[in-house]
């Protein structure tokens, strides 16, 4: 399951996934972060900037975490919520069991081939805007289990991660620092999750949404679809 060698026989291109992303988004600054409203108003009008700042302040100061335990790091994560470290001081200590009500997903542990799709599903179930904190070495690279036949080499192969907290496991202080850093970045408007905003769908022309989905679904040939456990080479 190593992803060191991209597999020619599956995909023609051996270019790493970043290439695909660049091709999709074009070079230069990501224009997805500029709203239509802003385009219409020209340069940054005062009221929008203030509103953006306010929303950043809001999102950066309060977040519901997803109650999500995977492996060793989840023990330290619980310690972070619990008495001594008390993550709730930063307005980030309410774990919600349902992904529908969560903003931040702390990924605390090793992701293996069987769990990868499930984690992606949970991530997909969270409403926008959502953020991910990768906790521990396993979510960075697979950590001590990197060479395992079954281990996904980092959470970023499956979902976008905003903050990586290294350590095996990171101390609760480190996780708090990671969450505080995430909040700081959100407050400064530096982090913007990968969001599919409605206007990205423009390229599909004037099709209403449902027809669009139908059209895309029709394009898929179910025989060709593959389920794969090596995420790195996925486009």
């Amino acid at each position, binding site marked *: *399951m*190593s992803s060191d*060698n991209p*597999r020619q*026989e*599956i995909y023609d291109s051996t270019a790493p996934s970043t290439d695909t992303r660049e091709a999709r988004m074009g070079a230069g600054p990501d224009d997805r972060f500029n709203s239509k409203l802003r385009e219409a108003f020209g340069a940054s009008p005062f009221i929008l900037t203030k509103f953006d700042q306010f929303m950043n302040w809001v999102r950066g100061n309060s977040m519901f975490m997803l*109650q*999500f*335990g*995977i*492996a*060793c790091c*989840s*023990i*330290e994560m*619980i*310690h972070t919520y*619990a*008495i*001594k470290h008390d993550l709730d001081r930063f307005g980030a200590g309410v*774990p919600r*069991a349902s*992904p529908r009500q969560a903003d931040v997903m702390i990924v605390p*542990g*090793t992701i*293996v*081939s*069987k*769990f990868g799709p*499930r*984690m992606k*599903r*949970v991530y997909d179930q969270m409403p926008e805007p959502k953020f991910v904190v990768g906790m521990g070495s396993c979510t960075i690279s697979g950590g*001590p*289990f990197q*060479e*395992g*036949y*079954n*281990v996904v080499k980092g959470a970023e192969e499956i979902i976008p991660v905003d903050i990586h907290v290294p350590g*095996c*496991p990171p*101390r609760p202080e480190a996780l708090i620092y990671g969450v505080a850093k995430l909040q700081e970045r959100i407050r400064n408007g530096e982090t913007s999750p990968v969001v599919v905003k409605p206007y990205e769908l423009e390229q599909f022309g004037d099709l209403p949404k449902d027809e669009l989905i139908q059209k895309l679904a029709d394009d898929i040939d*179910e*025989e*060709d*679809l*593959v*389920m*794969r*456990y*090596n995420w790195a080479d996925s486009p």
Partner: protein
Amino acid sequence: MSTELEPQTPEVTENDLEALIGDRALRRDDHLNAPGFVIRPDDVQDVLFDLRDEAGFDHLSCLTAQQYEDRYESIYHMKKYADPTQEVSVVVPTSVDNPVSQSAEPVFRTADWHEREAFDLVGIDYEGHPDPRRILLPETWQGHPLSKDYDQEQPQVVTLAEHANPIQPDHHDEESDTMFLNIGPHHPATHGVLHVKTVLDGETVVDIDPDIGYLHRCEEQMCQQGTYRHQIMPYPDRWDYVSAGLLNEWAYARAAEDLADIEVPEYAQVIRTMGAELCRIASHFLALGTFCLDVYGDFNAVFQYSFRDREVVQDILEDLTGQRLMFNYFRLGGVAWDLPEPRDEFIEKARDFLDELPAKISEYNDLVTGNEIFQVRCNDTGVLEPDLAKSYGCTGPVARASGIDYDLRRDDPYGYYENLDWDVITRQGCDNYARVLCRMEEVEESAKIIEQCLDLLEDWPEDDREIQANVPRTLKPDPDTEIYRAVEGAKGELGIYIRSDGTDKPARFKIRSPCFHNLSSLEEISEGDFIPDLIASLGSLDIVLGEVDR
């Protein structure tokens, strides 16, 4: 040790065993820990039935599967609950072309999961197995990763059609009134990433099927790639990651030390014993806390208090080992370093913790075990009868709460436990409440042990503090030596099987995880109960997925 000796089962000598197995033994294949008998693949049930019923080997401790150049081999490690020092290994070789062996499931229920795992990872087929599916890897996985010809580089690609999606709404049975429910792998009460396929009739659990493997981190492969001396030791910490690190490290240390014939200095044994019991306390606190999370709801006080108390234990362990959770403190032949300087301060700190412990435990008793609603919730739910527990290979607090007096610290002594004064806790309740109480009382026993260790350490003569034996830089045990050794981990019997091939890395490293066995009994104890009882039973089994899946 003060525990009175229970009536010992009669010692079964090797001659008795030879006579019992008779012609069915093709040859002997002795292991360091036990006599081994090689039998034909179609004699498995026969021989195991005889061993269980005639010779009293009622504990199928572990099943190791492995591949040699010329054959596959399944090894049934058998013990007695009454006296675990009496062991016997049944070795079943099968050919490479047609690796089919008879299933032992009719004899021991625990063989069910074990043989599924052997099929999954090594590729041995078991004839007559009731449920021959993969257990750890996804159903659509190609190849058997611990077999010789497995190519890790091969792409694992399957078409979508082949890949069954368990969340697909095709589980609805038009005819019946039951409902299929996936509990997990992401669910607040599964203590990690366990997936329980549940069939419900209203609120009643009709059928469950625990689906594990969501945290299968290839621990056995990792250990087979590491050198004995240093590279394996960090991994045990990550099996049972609930602060039980030192207990796990001891499992590996004990097996490897016996394999390479290393004598551990007494001083190091005392430190090991103390550290291990601290780990046990931390682990049992977590078990209590998370169980209350299941029964009380989130953000309850007991859960938070138990984590407050764990912090104290973790602080002490951090002083001792340098890490909060993944200690990596044991070395083959001893421990990494002596108690931290200044010693007095450390000992004082540990004593302070022990002094405060009785008050804390009585607080827990007030809040939890004395609470009438809690008692109503936990009494007579999740009942695990002793016979069933034995058949499933349950050990640790789960077995002891079912009245099985089985504790390796006393029955198969290692470390410094023999010389200390403590008791094995057993309870007859067999239910969730008994399991919780059993853990709480074990915390007190552990505190007793630590107290005595601290006294010993304080008075230990300064010029005799040898923390590590002299161990060669590169350990290369004799080729083809095999050993299976177990210690009493936080959750039960944690065993390690190692086969050496003359190099500095083990040829086969098999972990016998107590949680794996305890979890397999979930099906039995929760069917017919309500969903809340299923959740509570799961909590009281105190599983750690890192150890279940390895």
